[in-house]
């Protein structure tokens, strides 16, 4: 049931890279588009879901999204999937055989690398997959190119019968620019052709197909030498000629407007002969690529002398302020002192959990427990590793909290034998890749207590729906996973499964204490929704009765950003011990009345604000 909105007609539009890709996917006549949310790629499918004429979906993980796209391609439809860089690791099993079968309807895989690491667990260069899978990689440099290259990618995919990778970075996905767009074309799928030698990849069928990967690669290489996606910018200052791919083209043109540039759009396989000719026209070649030295290595292997990561950083973005000093050093020039004021030291402001976030109760409780090892996962709840809770000990990959917890349990020695192993995972991450880990825990008789934080949203990426919300990408009702039944089916005993309200601290604490004592797998499911989704209902807000506040600071330990310290003091107790005091106030206009801070407040100084203030506010403190 696509929820159709009016799609603007062909025009000059102000679009992010994600917007531009979505627009082009729609215009290309794509029939199926699938993704799992992941920064910085999330918006592509969100935007596509508002278009009509195609099936869009949130898939449970990136591998499934890629397989959905492949299935559509098999029946002859144009298909698309999008993911962040680590998503392609998950989907790579499908990719590495899809490259043997090839594709029928055009299939484009958009993968967004988080260069600069704004919201990821690592930084990696997805261009490697092009080399590994022998598939072409296109790298746009801005929104207009993201649009144009998405259209070109479908055309190339159908010509080469190959999936095509559209490699984006954060600085493409989240940059807005002016884009000239077109209109949608409709393409009727040719239909599925039964052909086991093509689609059934057993050794006898796959082996004869292997050469097709290399034939296609050769065709793509020939294409790369002539395509207008690869071009040269002629300029007069021939001391250094730059080779760029992706957003670095814009940075180089900005920083060195007089230097010649070879701009790669179809960067894999690279047009080595064109690059060789370019190199002959300049004194020195500098390859500017994010993030690994792929082109540099390939050019050197082809005998084209060049500089690259010997002078440029191997991590992070290669913006003009990074390039300029590096190039000056390469030219043997002195790097001048900057004229602007130096960067000022200011306290860090890490992301925090929201006011009244249901995870606050979980982490407050975990922070009060002794002798626990807390195996964590990927989502908003990873913030539990920060202050004031310090109650998350690991974060690796989607669903890893399960396997690492089991491994800790099985591998521990005497020094850890009295510790409890707890795993913390969110609802969407659990369904993405955590369920299998829980099955492994039950099957192999692990002693792990799992906290399954069901906030009915993919919180960190903006509250998307998942199979636990009972709604699809359009918000329409669909089947809803029952987590208690699912855990039971995965082998957790019914009496070891508890569904609890995370705002009831004593209940949560009791359940955690009891379940960590019992030496078998248990699951505690918390059932309060994310405060940022539409279904969240705020309650009456609280305030602090100043004369009753004793400064114990217990409420501060909850970690709610609506609680502010107004005054600090120290007292010497009868025992002679010095104790820090923190007197507080609650930003009542921000408080939504979850009541978490009320519970650890010994003097009962936190009471309902009356009358409720009408001013809407984020946590401002006036001077």
């Amino acid at each position, binding site marked *: 049931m696509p929820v159709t909105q009016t799609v603007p007609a062909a025009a000059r539009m102000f679009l992010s890279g994600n917007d531009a890709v979505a627009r082009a996917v729609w215009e290309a006549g794509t029939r199926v588009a699938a993704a799992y949310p992941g920064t910085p790629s999330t918006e592509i499918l969100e935007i596509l879901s508002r278009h009509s004429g195609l099936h869009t979906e949130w898939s449970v993980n990136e591998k499934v999204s890629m397989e959905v796209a492949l299935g559509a391609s098999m029946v002859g439809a144009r298909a698309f999937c999008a993911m962040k860089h680590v998503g392609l690791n998950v989907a790579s099993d499908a990719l590495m055989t899809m490259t043997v079968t090839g594709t029928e309807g055009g299939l484009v895989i958009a993968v967004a690398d988080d260069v600069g690491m704004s919201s990821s667990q690592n930084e990696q260069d997805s261009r490697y997959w092009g080399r590994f899978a022998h598939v072409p990689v296109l790298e746009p440099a801005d929104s207009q190119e993201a649009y144009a290259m998405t259209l070109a990618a479908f055309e190339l995919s159908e010509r080469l019968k190959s999936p095509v990778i559209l490699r984006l970075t954060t600085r493409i996905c989240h940059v807005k620019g002016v884009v000239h767009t077109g209109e949608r074309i409709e393409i009727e799928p040719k239909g599925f052709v039964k052909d086991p030698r093509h689609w059934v990849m057993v050794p006898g069928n796959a082996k004869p197909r292997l050469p097709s990967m290399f034939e296609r690669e050769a065709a793509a290489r020939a294409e790369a030498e002539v395509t207008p996606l690869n071009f040269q910018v002629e300029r007069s200052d021939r001391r250094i000629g730059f080779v760029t791919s992706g957003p670095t083209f814009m940075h180089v043109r900005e920083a060195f407007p007089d230097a010649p540039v070879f701009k790669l759009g179809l960067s894999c396989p690279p047009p080595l002969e064109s690059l060789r000719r370019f190199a002959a026209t300049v004194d020195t070649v500098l390859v500017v690529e994010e993030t690994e030295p792929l082109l540099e290595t390939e050019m050197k292997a082809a005998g084209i002398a060049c500089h690259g990561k010997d002078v440029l950083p191997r991590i992070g973005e290669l913006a003009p302020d990074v390039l300029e000093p590096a190039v000056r050093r390469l030219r043997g020039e002195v790097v001048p002192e900057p004229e602007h*004021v130096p960067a000022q030291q200011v306290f860090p402001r890490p992301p925090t959990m929201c006011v009244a976030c249901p995870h606050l109760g979980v982490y407050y409780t975990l922070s009060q427990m002794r002798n626990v090892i807390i195996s964590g996962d990927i989502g908003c709840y990873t913030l539990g590793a920060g202050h*004031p809770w310090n109650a998350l000990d690991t974060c690796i990959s989607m669903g890893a909290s399960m396997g690492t917890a089991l491994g800790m349990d099985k591998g521990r020695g005497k020094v850890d034998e009295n510790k409890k192993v707890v795993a913390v995972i969110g609802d969407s991450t659990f369904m993405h890749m955590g369920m299998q880990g829980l099955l492994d825990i039950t099957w192999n008789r692990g002693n792990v207590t799992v906290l399954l934080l069901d906030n009915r949203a993919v919180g960190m990426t903006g509250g998307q729906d998942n199979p636990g919300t009972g709604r699809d990408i359009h918000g329409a009702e669909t089947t809803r996973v029952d987590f208690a039944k699912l855990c039971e089916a995965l082998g957790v005993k019914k009496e070891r499964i508890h569904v609890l309200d995370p705002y009831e601290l004593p209940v949560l604490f009791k359940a955690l204490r009891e379940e960590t004592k019992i030496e078998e797998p248990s699951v505690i499911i918390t059932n309060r929704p994310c405060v940022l989704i539409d279904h969240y209902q705020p309650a009456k807000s609280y305030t602090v009765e100043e004369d009753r506040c004793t400064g114990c600071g217990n409420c501060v330990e909850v970690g709610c950003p609506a609680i502010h310290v107004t005054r600090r003091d120290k007292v010497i107790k009868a025992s002679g011990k010095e104790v820090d005091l923190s007197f507080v106030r609650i930003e009542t206009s921000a408080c939504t009345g979850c009541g978490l801070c009320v519970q650890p407040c010994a003097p009962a100084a936190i009471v309902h604000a009356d009358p409720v203030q009408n001013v809407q506010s984020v946590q401002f403190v006036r001077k």
Partner: protein
Amino acid sequence: MSKITNILVCGVGGQGVMTATEILAEAAISLGFDVKKTEVAGMSQRGGVVTSHLRFGDAVLSPQIAPGEADLLIGFESAEALRWSHMLRPDGVALVNSGRIVPPVVNLGLFDYPEDPVAQMRALGLTVHAFDASSLAIQLGNIRLGNTVMLGACADRLPFPAEVLRDAVLARFGTRKPQLVEANRGAFEAGRRAVGGEALAA
């Protein structure tokens, strides 16, 4: 190459930094400029640091403003303005909300909030126009008017008439929420007055 205007907007997740920059971009586009706008939005709703870069002119290449290249620094929060003050050109102008948002790490006593971020910026030799836009927005009836107040404050320092920006602000609400048009018009003019903008324009 013709002059590119660089505007850096900074603040805290949830303050409307990205929306304000989007409106500035819309105003520039309405005049036919080439425009690029970039930000890191991954955790913007989580009370973290947010910056948004806006560049416009005849043809914009890199979307990022390099340190020391911002013509205007619009700080939605005073410590954030200080944090990004190195982005300003030596002859640039900072427009700063002197209101404070104190993060949990300061409440926990792990870090100190700077005593007077605006004074610190001035001591560095920067031109700073500061006023409490948060309080002003609350007086006007809604803290959420804060970003319109800040847009009003920068309106007389743009390479185009303040009215173009005002119309872009009001166009946001005109279609969906007409009752907000007057509130935002008032907030915009209050922001202009707070930094002496109207007087300069006249």
